[in-house]
């Protein structure tokens, strides 16, 4: 790429500057300081890479106004381009407004610019292609070593940055992380910190072990402490026991004395206090029982007196079974009474019915009364069953034949009407047809159908024969045409003939070439063609003859068939005409006529059932007429027989069979009613006899009872007067008995009156025992008598019950008396047993023992009083047994000494406990402070941080080292592949720039140093060269780098700004020549 024109709208000191027509080789801008040369170089950089913040700050806004930016026109691959870039002052973007416009006027963007720049970024462009005064000044400020180093970097790879720089930076960075000396380096310091923290953590962890040891010690001491406390508690208890024992010792001794007295008394403490009282109560109970026994004996005597005073009649009780039997028959008497009443009612009803039956049969009042009076009827015909049987058969015959005749007449009427209806329908259906008879009509229609079908068959045969005739005629025409001029066959035959003739001639020509045939002689193929031609000619001849013969034969045969067919057609036409004559004249076609005839036949067939029904109805009418005649004959014969039978039985002949039957049925009913009435009268008589027997027996029994009672009363009055003296004492309980006696007396008075009333009947009754008939009133009377007898027996039973009650009371009193006697005996035995149980023989001895026991109780009370005092002193503080052990055991005198010894032990133990508690507190405090110390997790967290930092440092160091490792590889590549070429070219430029004074730039193998050889062949290090020479080397190396890029296809404008300021005139001229030549070289 070359810059052709430049237009600065506004940039630094430049405004509206236009530089046109820059040459392809080299352009020199000459001017004093601050003329704007560097600004122009920066303008070029800006056009290529934009407004960086540094350039924006330094060159914008333009000093003399104008729109910031401008444009340059360049030539490059693909033609010329205009690169315009302008900036907005209020916007800080690096790129600004970039436009790249090609020669064709198409606007393109950053990608075209990047392509023109060969993808070289600004860093490379600045380092290699745009060298300014600043770089030279920087080089000048360096000391010799640094300057040499800087120049070496140029030779050892310089793109964006120097490879040497990068390697050194990496090494320096690694040095910060890890130093070769133990004291420096970040990781060393971190290691130191880590070690310190680890030591601290170990110490803190050891404090954890100390805590565990303290815990163990605390446990041990706690055990000892617990044991001591337990012992102190025991000793304190013992001490208290001694103290209490000393306090209770006097009371204890007095209590011992009382105990001895009690033991000496030997009182019987087992004797109960209530023994005397118990003995006393037994004696009182014995006296009370004896008094009560005397009272009971007195009561029993009174009871026996009352029993004897009761009016009990043993003779009356003897009649008791008979009276009970009579009373059992009272329902029977009532039943017979009701039966008699019911039979009498039925008898009256039957008599009434008999009167009605007689009235219905026409029997008169007199005859009826006679019939009731059991007399015979004289005016009634003999309508006995035998007479009825004789009449029944003729009567049944009359009824049967009369019924049959009626049925036959009704049937004949029905059938006659049916036959007439059917005949009318049939006549209506046949009226439209020629025939009167249905059968004839059907036969005629069937024949017509047959003729029509045959006619149709003849017509079809005729059509087929005509069709065949036409085919044969066409065939005959075709055969005749084939015989006359067969075109296709002739063409085929001609083709075969021409072919055969050709092959025959061709073969002949080949076999015998002569003057007419200008053909090569070839007898073999010629003979073959000749044979083939002969064969084809033979085939043509044979096949032609055979085809001619076949056609003629077929034509003859066809004409024969045609002739025979025409004969058949004529014969068929004759048959057709014959059928046409036989058929009735009709204008329609044959098919229509056939269809009409078939429809007619179907209609006639539907009339066939009607015809059959008519015939059947006619036959039924005739049969009914015949049966009616036969029934009329039989009826006449039966009537004659009926009249004859009536005459034989003597009954009027005007009597119809129906009236005879009514009379027979009424006679039977009358006879049955009369017989039932007879039966009822017999039964009534029987019941009256039964009732009479029973009333008689009851009456007798009542009389017997009355007599017996009277006799017994007499006896009791005598005995009552004898016992009145004794009974007066007990008059009160017998008031009831006197009332019953009064009732008995009243009954007796009634009974005395009653026999007086019935006394007159007694004789008649006794005389007519066998024939007594009783009626319903007698039955009522008998029932009253039975009731009276039953009342008497009930009264006696009541007395018996009273006596039984008195006897039971007496038994109860006897039992009480016996019980009291037994109780008195038992109380006597208890008295003796109580004394025996208490071990005393007498009551006095018992009282003595009880006095001794009372004294024993007093002593015990005193003992208990002392005991209470002792226990009150002891209280719940110490165990009673422990005190007893001390006071009852040996050594009771030296209790004070033993108490003192225990006290001393307690004091010693408490001192030890105090020490241990104090120690425990110290241990707990120490453990608490150890547990509360959070420095360990704190230190651990710090250690984690340090270790993480170490890891990060190590990772970073690894990154740096690995980068160095890879860059060393790059260095090797560069030194072996690129540096020799670069240095060789730089040597040439240096030779030209120094006009042969210095001829070579080189580097020793494996060392990062540059050597400069002068014309004398001396190899000089860079440090010894002058400032101007070093700048010359600098420019030579840059030119070689630019040339290297050009060889790689990257050709960019080389912009040098004030690089010759330190050159003398001769070197400046040489440099100008070198640059001119360089520009030309690059163009080529």
């Amino acid at each position, binding site marked *: 790429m070359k810059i052709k024109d430049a237009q600065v709208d506004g940039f630094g000191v430049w405004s509206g500057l236009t530089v046109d027509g820059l040459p392809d080789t080299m352009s020199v801008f000459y001017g004093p300081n601050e003329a704007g040369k560097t600004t122009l170089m920066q303008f070029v950089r800006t056009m290529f890479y934009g407004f960086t913040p540094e350039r924006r700050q330094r060159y914008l806004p333009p000093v003399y106004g104008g729109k910031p930016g401008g444009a340059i026109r360049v030539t490059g691959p693909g033609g010329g381009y205009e690169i315009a870039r302008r900036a907005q002052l209020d916007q800080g973007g690096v790129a600004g407004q970039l436009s790249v416009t090609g020669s064709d006027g198409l606007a393109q963007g950053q990608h075209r610019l990047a392509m023109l720049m060969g993808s070289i970024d600004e860093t490379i462009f600045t380092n290699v292609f745009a060298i300014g005064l600043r770089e030279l000044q920087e080089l000048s400020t360096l000391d010799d070593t640094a300057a040499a180093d800087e120049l070496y970097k140029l030779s050892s790879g310089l793109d964006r940055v120097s490879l040497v720089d990068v390697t050194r930076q990496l*090494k320096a960075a690694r040095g910060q992380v890890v130093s070769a000396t133990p004291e420096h380096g970040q990781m060393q310091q971190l290691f130191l910190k880590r070690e310190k923290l680890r030591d601290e953590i170990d110490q803190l*962890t050891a404090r954890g072990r100390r805590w565990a040891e303290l815990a163990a010690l605390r446990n041990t001491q706690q055990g000892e402490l617990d044991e001591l406390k337990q012992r102190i508690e025991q000793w304190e208890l013992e001490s208290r026991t001694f103290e209490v024992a000393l306090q209770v010792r006097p009371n204890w001794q007095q209590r011992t004395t009382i105990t001895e007295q009690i033991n000496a008394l030997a009182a019987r403490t087992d004797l109960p206090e209530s023994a005397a009282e118990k003995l006393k109560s037994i004696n009182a109970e014995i006296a009370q029982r004896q008094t009560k026994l005397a009272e009971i004996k007195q009561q029993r005597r009174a009871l026996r007196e009352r029993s004897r005073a009761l009016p009990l009649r043993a003779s009356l009780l003897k009649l008791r079974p008979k009276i009970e039997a009579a009373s059992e028959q009272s329902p029977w008497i009532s039943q017979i009474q009701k039966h008699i009443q019911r039979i009498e009612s039925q008898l009256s009803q039957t008599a009434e019915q008999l009167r009605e039956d007689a009235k219905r049969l026409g029997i008169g009042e007199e005859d009826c009364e006679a019939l009731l009076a059991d007399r015979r009827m004289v005016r009634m015909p003999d309508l006995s069953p035998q007479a009825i049987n004789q009449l029944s058969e003729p009567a049944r015959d009359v009824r049967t034949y009369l019924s049959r005749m009626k049925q036959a007449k009704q049937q004949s009427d029905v059938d006659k009407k049916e036959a007439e209806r059917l005949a009318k329908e049939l006549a209506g259906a046949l009226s439209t047809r020629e025939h009167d008879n249905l059968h004839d009509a059907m036969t005629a229609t069937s024949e017509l159908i047959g003729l029509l079908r045959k006619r149709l068959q003849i017509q079809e045969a005729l059509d087929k024969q005509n069709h065949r005739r036409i085919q044969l005629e066409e065939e005959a025409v075709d055969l005749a045409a084939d015989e006359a001029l067969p075109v296709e066959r002739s063409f085929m035959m001609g083709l075969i003939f021409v072919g055969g003739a050709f092959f025959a001639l061709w073969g002949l020509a080949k076999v015998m070439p002569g003057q007419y045939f200008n053909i090569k002689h070839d007898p073999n193929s010629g003979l073959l063609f000749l044979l083939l031609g002969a064969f084809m000619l033979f085939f043509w001849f044979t096949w032609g003859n055979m085809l001619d013969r076949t056609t003629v034969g077929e034509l003859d045969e066809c004409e024969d068939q045609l002739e025979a067919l025409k004969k058949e057609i004529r014969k068929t036409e004759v048959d057709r005409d014959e059928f046409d004559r036989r058929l009735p004249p009709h204008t329609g076609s044959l098919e229509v006529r056939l269809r009409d005839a078939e429809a007619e036949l179907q209609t006639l067939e539907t009339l066939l059932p009607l015809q059959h029904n008519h015939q059947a109805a006619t036959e039924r009418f005739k049969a009914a007429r015949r049966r009616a005649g036969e029934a009329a004959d039989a009826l006449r014969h039966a009537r004659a027989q009926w009249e004859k039978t009536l005459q034989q039985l003597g009954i009027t002949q005007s009597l119809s069979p129906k009236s005879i039957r009514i009379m027979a049925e009424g006679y039977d009913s009358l006879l049955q009613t009369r017989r039932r009435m007879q039966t009822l009268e017999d039964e009534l008589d029987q019941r009256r006899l039964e009732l009479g027997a029973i009333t008689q027996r009851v009456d007798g029994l009542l009389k017997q009872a009355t007599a017996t009672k009277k006799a017994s009363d007499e006896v009791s009055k005598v005995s009552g007067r004898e016992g009145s003296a004794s009974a007066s004492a007990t008059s009160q309980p017998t008031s009831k008995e006197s009332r019953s006696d009064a009732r008995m007396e009243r009954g007796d008075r009634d009974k005395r009156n009653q026999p007086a009333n019935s006394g007159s009947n007694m004789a008649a009754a006794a005389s007519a025992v066998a024939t007594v008939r009783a009626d319903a009133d007698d039955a009522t009377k008998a029932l009253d008598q039975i009731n009276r007898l039953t009342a008497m027996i009930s009264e006696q039973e009541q007395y018996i019950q009273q006596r039984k009650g008195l006897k039971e009371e007496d038994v109860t009193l006897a039992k009480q008396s016996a019980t009291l006697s037994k109780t008195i005996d038992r109380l006597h035995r208890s008295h003796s047993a109580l004394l025996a149980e208490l071990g005393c023989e007498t009551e006095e001895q018992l009282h003595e023992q009880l006095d001794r026991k009372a004294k024993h109780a007093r002593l015990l009370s005193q003992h208990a009083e002392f005991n209470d005092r002792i226990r009150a002193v002891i209280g719940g503080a110490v165990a009673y047994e422990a005190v007893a052990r001390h006071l009852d055991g040996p050594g009771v005198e030296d209790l004070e000494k033993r108490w003192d010894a225990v006290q001393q032990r307690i004091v010693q133990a408490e001192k030890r406990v105090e020490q241990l508690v104090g120690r425990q507190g110290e241990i707990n405090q120490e453990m608490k402070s150890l547990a509360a110390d959070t420095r360990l997790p704190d230190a651990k967290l710090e250690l984690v*941080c340090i270790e993480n930092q170490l890891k990060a440092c190590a990772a970073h160091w690894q990154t740096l080292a690995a980068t160095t490792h890879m860059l060393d590889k790059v260095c090797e590549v560069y030194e072996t592949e690129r540096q020799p070429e670069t240095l060789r070219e730089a040597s040439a430029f240096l030779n030209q720039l120094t006009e042969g004074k210095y001829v070579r730039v080189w580097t020793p193998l494996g060392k990062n140093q540059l050597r400069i050889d002068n014309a004398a062949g001396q190899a000089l290090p860079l440090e010894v060269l002058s400032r101007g020479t070093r700048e010359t080397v600098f420019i030579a190396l840059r030119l070689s780098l630019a040339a290297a890029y050009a060889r790689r296809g990257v050709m960019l404008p080389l912009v040098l700004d004030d690089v010759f300021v330190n050159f003398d005139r001769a070197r400046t001229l040489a440099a100008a020549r070198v640059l001119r030549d360089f520009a030309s070289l690059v163009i080529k």
Partner: protein
Amino acid sequence: MAKESFRFIHASDFHLERPMQDVLDLPDHLRRTLVDAPWKAAASVFEHAIVENVDFVVLSGDLVNPVSAGAQGVAFLLDRFEELAAKGIEVYWAGGSVDDPDRWPESVALPDSVHVFSKKQVEPVIHRRNGIPLVTLLGRSSDGAESIRAAEYGHEPDDNFVIAVAHGKADIETLGSERIDYWALGGQHQPETLSAQQPCIRYCGTPQARSLSEPGAHGFVLVDIDAQRNMQTHQVEVDGVRTTIQEIDADDVALGRDLRQLLSRRVARIQSEASGRHVLAHWRVHMDLENASVVGPSALEDLLAWLRREFGHGSPACWSIDIEVLPPKQLPKKWQDEDTILGDFLRVAAGHRKNAAKELNLKNIVDSESPGAAHWTATLLPVDATAQLAMLERSTLLGVDMLRGHQIDLLAPTRRYGGLDK
């Protein structure tokens, strides 16, 4: 058959001996919080046991290393156990890898309410309420085996609710085959429900996350069993500090000035998710080298300082541990094709990448630039192939940055760790 309802707490992995990990710089104002976080979380478990009036507490191991946790660890547990005993709450403790029952100091007697399962065999214990059997606990302390042997937990079936207490890795298939109602598992710091249905298999996780690899909420499990044996589990969060790794995509970085706004929003989201807890955040920035200029030199360090200043001092605080620059997923192809030093460098890096960085041997550099002791070699050389590859990626990024003129200034991290330039 309907029985009585009950509730218990399942907790594990207190790891009282272990501080917070992955912290690079220890800020003074958060020092106490970070130190106390594991202890407070563990104390919360026991406080909840009392407040929730549970019947018993099941501890599935790795509570404390009695040796390395010092006096505080043992005393802490002892005090908590005694508090529970005073409330009548029993403790069933299966030891893990750090709290081997044999390591517990003999001189320190545990309360009678604490039952430590044997490490030799599975031990059945019946938990009773008022003398009536309520729960059968089958437990075993870890004997060093990595996996839980489910077959050892076979038992005679009874009417009690059965809880298995175990420490180690679980296989859901084998655990599910046993007649256990609830598997109380320990040994995994992240809470996980392997099976929510019958049987319920759960890792309750540690009450307090320690490292960046343990993100999210942590706590313990509160289990409620009703009379019909219906189970309800609640994960109760008691952690005081949470950790998170936040990735900033290259596209986000390309937004340039909005990056701080983006980070602000991200911090707000993190703090919202943490529900008033402190958060330790690690930022991973996917660097887009083509647009790296928008980040600017030392921008990441400034950014970290800004994050710490803005969000690291509040209550709750979101303390940014570090900003890690990740290499872009793919470097521009044209860079590698360049005929420049950068191109040579990238081609060399690609060659190493093909060989899985096996030829990237730093031994010579270690020997020449370090004091040379064996521990330096062990510290400075990558430990495995993964670390080697990661190192290669970082080196490539660093090389590219330096050869392109320090646009990101990736040497800056050395100054962040309290290095010489600080």
